[in-house]
């Protein structure tokens, strides 16, 4: 058996390309629908990136419109738009990644310390719930809590004899609100990974620590946290790989197209969406999109390089 396996690759590599295709035609056919799918929906749009370098008009199409080189990019860069969009996107993501992972680890450790199985199960189920609802509903939940006329928070403020609060015209309050909503929606999901990692810690090690007289804090500090370190590092690094990709659904459903709040809430995705769908400004939208894809690509490559150095098993490729 072992011998046959060892011989197999050697024999295969002697085959010509067409012989390989013929031999594995069924397996190739099994992959064909997926290959067609990614060709049609992920690769086919790529030539259209050209629209970022032209002055697009509908009549001439992408490849017939006048070529203007990097003018679209120049305009975005000099107007400061590109900088403010990038800044917002990255700062929000940093907050999401750092606070999100911190809270997830915190929740997972506490869940693990609970002895009542019933409590563990019920609280985990409830914390996971916000992940399952649509972003549209998240937007409605937030509006329901915060709006000026009928919002829950304003109801409480009024009943306490305090002044009403109008967050939908105050840009400065949205960064904390968006971060809280993100944490609310994602922490249940994120803590699952950490909880599973804690469950995987060797039980004997915990027992030995107990017998040696380690108290609860010491067990968390010297056993659980060090055991979680590789998971935390890897998840943080991969999250950093996506740092220029914004969470469109969250921002668009909560802030929507309220220009009063754009200063603190406009991220790359929301800008590109409006430029495409509302303004039909495909050239500008595509220029921003290409800029984002290229930066994202470079960052992922760098992160993967680092992960490969630390823990080759976890690298993406």
């Amino acid at each position, binding site marked *: 058996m072992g011998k046959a396996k060892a011989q197999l690759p050697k024999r295969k590599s002697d085959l010509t390309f067409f012989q390989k295709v013929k031999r594995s035609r069924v*397996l*190739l056919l099994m992959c064909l629908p997926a290959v067609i799918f990614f060709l049609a929906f*992920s*690769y086919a749009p790529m030539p259209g990136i050209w629209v970022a370098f032209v002055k697009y008009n509908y009549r001439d199409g992408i490849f017939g419109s006048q070529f203007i080189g990097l003018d679209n990019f120049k305009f975005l860069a000099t107007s400061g738009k590109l900088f403010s969009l990038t800044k917002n996107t990255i700062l929000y993501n940093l907050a999401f990644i750092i606070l999100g992972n911190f809270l997830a680890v915190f929740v997972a450790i506490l869940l693990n310390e609970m002895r009542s199985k019933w409590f563990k199960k019920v609280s985990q189920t409830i*914390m996971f719930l916000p992940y399952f609802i649509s972003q549209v*509903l998240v937007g409605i939940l937030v509006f329901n809590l915060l709006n000026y006329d009928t919002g829950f928070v304003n109801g409480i403020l009024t009943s306490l004899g305090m002044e009403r609060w109008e967050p939908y015209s105050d840009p400065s309050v949205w960064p904390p609100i968006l971060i809280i909503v993100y944490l609310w929606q994602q922490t249940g999901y994120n803590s699952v990974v950490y909880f599973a990692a804690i469950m995987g810690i060797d039980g004997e090690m915990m027992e030995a620590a107990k017998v040696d007289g380690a108290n609860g804090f010491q067990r968390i500090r010297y056993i659980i946290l060090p055991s979680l370190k590789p998971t935390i590092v890897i998840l943080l690094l991969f999250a950093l790989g996506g740092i220029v990709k914004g969470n469109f659904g969250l921002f668009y459903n909560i802030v929507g197209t309220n220009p009063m709040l754009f200063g603190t809430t406009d991220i790359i995705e929301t800008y*590109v969406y409006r430029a495409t769908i509302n303004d039909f400004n495909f050239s500008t939208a595509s220029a921003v*999109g290409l800029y984002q894809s290229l930066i994202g690509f470079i960052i992922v490559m760098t992160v993967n390089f680092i992960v490969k150095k630390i823990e080759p098993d976890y690298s993406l490729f």
Partner: protein
Amino acid sequence: MANKDKDLMESGAKVKLGTSDKVIRGFGYVFLTLYSVCCIMPFIIIVSTSFTSEAVIRAEGVQFLPKDITLTAYNMVTKSGGIWRSYLVTITLTLVGTLIGLSIISMTGYALQRKDFPFRNAISFFIYFTSLFQAGLAPYYLLMTQTYHLKDSYLAVLLPLLMSPWLIILMKNFVKAIPHEITESGKIDGAGDMRIFVSLILPMLKPALATIGLFLALGYWNEWYQSSLFLSSRVAVKPLQFTLYEIVNKTDMLKNSVAGQFINLADIPQESVKMANAVLATGPIILLYPFIQKYFISGITVGAVKG
């Protein structure tokens, strides 16, 4: 042996349960209880609002518990029948999309995990690369509308959600756990690759199919993005979540319009009606959720890192 360990653990816990353990446990109960309340409270407020009369909402704002229970909002939502047609569209999209997606993902996941398939690395990379570099929204939008002519077609919602690189990787990870000897034994019996997949591998992939099927189904049920891109007002019946989106958005648009324009108050959907729509659009997920949660947890832990 296992019993002995358990005894040791319990006696150990009894003896060693010091102050710090009590503090951690006490804090944990309080923190997790409060956090869980925060997670569920917005849902309770929505349900309460949907049962509250519009007059009470206008006067006192939305309530944690309804003061007077009324079904007016639900009668208004269900009267026109629009919501049921949206249900039908969403259920159809969910069933068809999940079935097609699941078949393709499982076939691909199996083939790409076969060690004797010479093209597996090339195809894996071909698929994976799409998550590293994307064309962006504008070229995608132009392709879908001008080349594929999918504007105002349900296909524009159905097709893009069929699969993702992440789900294929997840399936590969599930397939990896099946011993290679199963495929070998099938080959020795003279079965072809397709036959091995259908009659030997698929039955062993049931948990994987459940997990990935549920991820797909959740994606279709909660779909609003592709609809917002491609379904214009010419499409009479929109998927559920996008219908909800339009109801909410209509209010915002009217509210944001400059004062001095004439706004017909009757055009603004009432708060309770919006919430009744929200409850109806989300209800099925919340009811099913406790039963399907474990499949999602297994999916997250199997596909955690390479996601």
